[in-house]
């Protein structure tokens, strides 16, 4: 029983080992780059969401008209 359990755990443990080795070797963004990414993509995400929300807001009365 204990053997089977250990074997079942072997695969995830190997995954974690390989995965963390890969992450350790990765090039990571510097703080400056990180802030830039957050600014650029965050602004884009929020802008897209707000525009979509505006469309939905316009959309609600139209829904009542046509359905």
């Amino acid at each position, binding site marked *: 029983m204990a053997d089977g359990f250990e074997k079942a755990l072997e695969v995830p443990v190997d995954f974690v080992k390989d995965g963390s080795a890969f992450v350790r070797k990765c090039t990571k963004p510097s703080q400056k780059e990180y802030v830039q990414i957050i600014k650029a993509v965050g602004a884009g995400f929020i802008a897209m969401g707000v525009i979509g929300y505006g*469309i939905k807001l316009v*959309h609600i009365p139209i829904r009542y008209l046509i359905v």
Partner: protein
Amino acid sequence: MPIINVPHHPSTSISSPTNQKYHTMAKFRLLDLVKPFQHGLPEIENPVSKAHLSFDDRMLYSIGIAIFFVFSQLPIYSVTSVNSDPFYQFRPLFAAERGTLDEFGLLPIITAGFFWQFLSGFRLINVNFNVKSDRGYFQSLQKLTAIFLGGVYAFALVFLTDYYNPTSKFAGAIDYNISSTTADAVVNVSSNIGEKFLIWFQLFVYNFLLTMIVEILDKDYGFTSGSLFLIGANVSVTFMTGVIDFTTIKTGKGYEYRGVFIQLFIIVKNAFGSLFSSSSKSNFFYEIVHLFNRSSLVNLKQVLFGVIAATLLFYLQAFHQAVPIKSKQIKTQAQSYPVKLFFNGALPIIFAYSVLFNLKIFSYVSYKFLNFTTLGSSLIAIVIAQFESSSSLVQSIIKLIVGEFSSDSFNPTFSKAYQTSGIASYFQAPTSFTGAILNPINTVVYSASLAGLIMFFALSWTKMSGSSGKDVADFFSKQNITILGKRDANVAHYFNKIINNACISGGLILAALAVIFDFLGCQGLPTALVVSILIIFNFLESFFTELQQSGGSSLYNTAFGGQDKLFGQ
């Protein structure tokens, strides 16, 4: 400017497989089944050439289609109300809006694409992707399956369950003439079928149109895979709407603002107001806890974890290992080929959830069909009659397989249906944090299967889509490119190892995020946000690559000048 043409992660698009091996086929192929449909099936024509379609045009197509998609979430004509919602967990991720034409959202398209990709990737069907006609057939097969699946899901939900409550518009008109009760009953039944057919027809036609629209973006008019782009756009709209919507709606608690931040602002304002007046006491903590946990609208918990996930993802998605590469023919400086941490993008999560979504549809429809329709219950009666000696055993087996749903019924507009028993209920996300702790077996089984599915797709997608280490190495050897300081023979081995490790670590992170969010009872929104951010980054990557290649002739060059370094290689 890149001189060596490096493939830009072909793995992150669903519908265009790249390097598949040639297979000679001797016998009948499944692909031949599409041939008769090929001429009847409408098809989006490829743009004459990429040069004809300017960068700005493609941007316009993408934005226009995203806007169209938001507009298209219309309520279904002749439906008065819908029953409690069994698919709440999957709605943000698949852009499936309850009670609208988008009832299943992008699920049919994603399921169809992924199903055939899976079969061809594991060589269960023969497709020769080097031949143009085969590629065409394969695309038609995916399209046909998507349209068919949309019809099947809609049929199951409309005719086999009582999910929709149709109005009786037709019956009202006939009532004048027929007064006897028996005739009334006949009219009711027939009109009911007519109305149900009307609902089914709307769902079917909309899904057909959506399939075609997604194909527009898939075929070079957009920047990334169409279905993924629409998911990304829709999640950002859903999330922002949940945060800033200032319209109110009546829930179980009274009138509430839909937007979490607006509601929070009102609570804080009321608390301040009650500080200075002795008459009205506002229950500040109760209000905050309710906002944190409310299940009818987007709650504070989802937004909070969404923001945490987003900040984490912004950091993690930039992780990559740069492999130094060099052309063997032209003397150039060494360049780097980045192997990203999220090598498969968001696809593993999307595929894992599409499996669970399909399972949910199946169990919901079979439960409703067997318990609440005359046809279904008589079928059960026949089966039980067959095993007269052990009918109670058979009954309990059927119950175990089919399971049971129950709904929270405090408010029909927001009520949700939860599966309470049966095998499939173990593959249902915990409904809340306390629910997760109280049902440890359910939680463990669900988490393990979700993580297992995500890991499986993370590891196998590269092989299925033709972007595994071997395929990348083949591509490089064709282009006469080699890794700096490695012999040609070792290139494939090297890429295999590095890409496999990238898939493992990326898959582990995605699986951990998805499991944690479901464990906390976030009901899918933060996970959808994770997916959408990965999609947006993938979009921006190809956007800026194209922007560079368009050579400054675009409107957007001035707007985004200098930012391409963030996303380019």
